[in-house]
């Protein structure tokens, strides 16, 4: 079944029909969510009651749009803060790891590499509970010995950041490492031959070369953090990030304001993905 081998037209067309159906299946839920963000009805369901922008900009109950819903705006802010923190941390650690695994030889390097991959094969909910258990053990220990309550280690945003960081770092490391492995090290040596110190050579030659991978992994880390649910669910305290806020609303059955939030998320992440593709193409 490759183009150079002739196939009966019936098979060719049914194959195409199958692939078309597949893409309809992929698109269906996303299109549905987006369309109902504009339905002038109190429920995200048929019948169609006409087009409205109320679920974005409406400012009065019952049709209060997302830009006037304080709890949703606050949740978006919380998620963005968490995502920026996770992005910075994981790209920083990922960069160190990439240099470590590409440039250095040491005992048990293979073992450390496999350990570094493990967070990807641990279910997110288990990463969440193990960090929850360990941080409370530490916090309880501190409280018993020193009589001081370490608020930071109780469920809350700090733990959410740590939980997401624990597996997103693996992805950042892999992305940066993949590019660093293709780097021609003689460029760095040339810079040092021209009088630069090692750190200067890395700063002026290697890091600019790595920039697309750094931007790429930062965007991926930001998006994965923004969308994370499983790990966050176990570690969250009183400040709910967006996914948790949406989950609570979904359970109760919400107005189409939830569709508006979803559409905003889709537009936001496509824009970020587009920026990333453009940055990578420019190089």
């Amino acid at each position, binding site marked *: 079944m490759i183009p150079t081998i002739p196939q009966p037209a019936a098979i060719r067309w049914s194959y195409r029909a199958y692939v078309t159906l597949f893409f309809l299946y992929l698109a269906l839920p996303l299109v549905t969510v987006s369309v109902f963000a504009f339905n002038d009805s109190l429920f995200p369901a048929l019948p169609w009651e006409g087009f409205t922008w109320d679920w974005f900009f409406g400012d009065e109950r019952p049709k209060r749009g997302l830009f006037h819903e304080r709890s949703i705006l606050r949740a978006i802010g919380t998620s963005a803060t968490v995502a920026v923190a996770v992005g910075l941390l994981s790209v920083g650690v990922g960069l160190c790891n990439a240099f470590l695994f590409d440039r250095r030889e040491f005992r048990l390097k293979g073992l450390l590499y496999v350990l570094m991959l493990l967070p990807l*094969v641990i279910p997110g909910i288990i990463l969440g509970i193990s960090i929850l258990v360990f941080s409370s053990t530490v916090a309880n220990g501190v409280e018993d010995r020193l009589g001081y309550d370490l608020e930071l280690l109780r469920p809350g945003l700090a733990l959410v950041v740590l939980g997401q960081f624990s597996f997103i770092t693996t992805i950042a490391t892999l992305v940066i490492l993949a590019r660093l492995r293709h780097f021609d090290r003689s460029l760095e040596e040339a810079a040092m031959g021209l009088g630069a110190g090692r750190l200067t050579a890395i700063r002026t030659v290697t890091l600019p070369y790595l920039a697309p991978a750094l931007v790429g992994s930062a965007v991926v880390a930001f998006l994965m953090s923004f969308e994370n649910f499983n790990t966050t669910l176990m570690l969250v305290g009183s400040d709910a990030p967006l996914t948790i806020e949406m989950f609570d609303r979904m359970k109760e059955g919400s107005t189409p304001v939830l569709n508006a939030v979803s559409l905003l998320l889709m537009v936001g992440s496509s824009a970020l993905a587009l920026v990333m593709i453009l940055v990578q193409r420019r190089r």
Partner: protein
Amino acid sequence: MSARLSLWLLMLPVLLWLGLLIILPHIDMFFVSLRTRVGVGEYEYGLANYAAFFTEPLYLRTFARTAIMSVLATALTLVIAFPVAYFIAKVARGRWQGVLFLFCLVPFWVSELVRTFGWMILLRETGVFSSVLQWAGLADGPVEMLYNDAAMMVGLVYTSMLFMVVPLVTTLQSLDDSLVEAGYDLGGNGFTVFREIILPHAVPGIVSGSIVVFMLSLGNYLTPTMLGGKDSLWFTEMIYSQFIVRFNWELGAAFGFLLLALSSFIVWAALKLSGQTLEKTLG
């Protein structure tokens, strides 16, 4: 700066990350799973939590159900994704290849919450499918398609589709067309060429795709909770309820460990059976 010191400095982040967020938390979770609370701040150590798991049919049944359904979801995803991946890698030409591949990635950039929400709007009693069926005269009253195993399966397959398509496309793209042609020239038909040439070549992609999809299904919380019915209890829901609702961390930790053991075992078995390694599959 001596080489030794700089090596330690470079290793510090990865050691802190893996030590404090992955290794110690899991060890601590294991210890917690071995104890039972007998009084305020008093614990007894033993295998009581694991004994509870093996003697309570509900726990065992849920565990087995989660495993079997995850395997089923993985198999379904593979069967649905393979023809599409093959189409993208081998049949589509030029621009189409990139465009179709990009379309496969789109749902991944959208939060799992949004995808699940989309299926809820489509499938529920007041949902789009139900309305369309009534409008077409195929149903007399509202049809509830949500809250059953089939709905949950649709959601699980949808959520993990990308992680199957991408590795499959990558491996299939590396298959040389001339090998397929040679298969036909030597008298093979579509079926034998598929069995003898295409399938063996695709094994690495099938393995890495299946591992990730299985893991994601096993560890999924959102889809079974929102799309599954009262009877489709998922093991992650039991972990959640022990931790957050019943506040029995000891039993919850034991459950977490059992889930981790199951997922590690299946990942290990899949790697062994196919002769792959974790480094090759993920890195």
